[in-house]
């Protein structure tokens, strides 16, 4: 009880400390110069209709690379920390089969969700979404199969290959930026195309596709290691 009171006290002081962040900061009424530059020049410079995407993929591309790395690390870490169950035969508890309806539904929906995921990351420069969201959607398609068919195994070789190769390709595109364009991760290695259409914004769709594949396979990796590990 004393501890709780102490915590409460600390948090009260913490709130007092944070108060100026709310009280002293007026809501913005205009973009700051940096954002203005992005909004004004972004569409012409990078050709991406979604300005958030242009910020994510190009202007702050290193962040995104880091983000991909973080997810990659998480996958590796989760796989590292969880011991994989040896062989599915020694599985101690039998998992309950999913219902037939769910299985059928899954079979019907999976390709559609897949396509939807691809749509999201391929249109990252035109509509909301992008590699991460698309990757999550793809991962959730596979998650759905994992839920419906818990005994089925994921082909790890293919998963690994997709993960590795898409990551490496992303890097290669980044490197190409150094030599073909103005800098690392510059998307202008490909022509900018017609603004607002699918094949535009230089390498952004390619990059986002690769990120999408990578994120998708990484998330599947996380889920898979969590599912298959010893419990």
């Amino acid at each position, binding site marked *: 009880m004393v501890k709780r009171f102490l915590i409460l006290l600390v948090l009260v002081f913490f709130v007092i400390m944070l108060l100026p962040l709310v009280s002293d900061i007026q809501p913005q009424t205009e973009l700051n110069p940096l954002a203005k530059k992005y909004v004004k020049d972004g569409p012409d410079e990078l050709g991406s209709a979604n300005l958030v995407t242009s910020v994510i993929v190009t202007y702050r591309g290193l962040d995104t690379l880091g983000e991909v790395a973080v997810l990659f690390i998480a996958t590796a870490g989760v796989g590292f920390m969880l011991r994989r169950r040896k062989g599915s035969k020694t599985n101690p508890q039998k998992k309950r089969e999913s219902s037939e309806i769910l299985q059928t539904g899954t079979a019907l*929906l999976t390709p559609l969700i897949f396509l939807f995921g691809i749509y999201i990351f391929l249109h990252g420069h035109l509509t909301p979404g992008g590699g991460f969201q698309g990757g999550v959607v793809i991962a959730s398609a596979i998650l759905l199969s994992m839920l419906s068919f818990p005994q089925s195994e994921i082909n790890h070789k293919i998963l690994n290959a997709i993960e590795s190769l898409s990551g490496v390709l992303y890097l290669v595109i980044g490197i190409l930026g150094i030599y073909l364009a103005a800098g690392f991760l510059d998307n202008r290695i490909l022509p900018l195309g017609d603004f607002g259409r699918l094949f535009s914004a230089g390498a952004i769709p390619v990059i986002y596709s690769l990120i999408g594949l990578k994120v998708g396979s990484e998330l599947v990796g996380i889920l898979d290691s969590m599912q298959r590990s010893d419990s």
Partner: protein
Amino acid sequence: MAVFGGIITFVGSIFLLLGALGIVRMPDVYNRMQAGTKATTLGILLFLAGIAIGHIECMCIFRILILILFIIFTNPISSHALARAAHHIGIPLTDKSVTDALAEDESEKEEAIS
């Protein structure tokens, strides 16, 4: 057109509200699911349709169509999965229930095994 859409939307929202009320009022999980899946599915169907009709100029009709189809298709599946799970882990039916054929069959099966 906009007003027509508005009315449809309004009806849809009433169904949504009813569905929500249903899950508050109903006595057990299965009955709540009845209210939840049915009323809300129709509700959202109408709500979305209304908005699509009301904003016909914005070209959102296709997306809303996809959305509606998706919801109609998935919502019963998830409800079913949940009901199945709830029954499996033995969440009881309300006292008002008159029969439970599934539970009977299950127990018969178990007896047969043992």
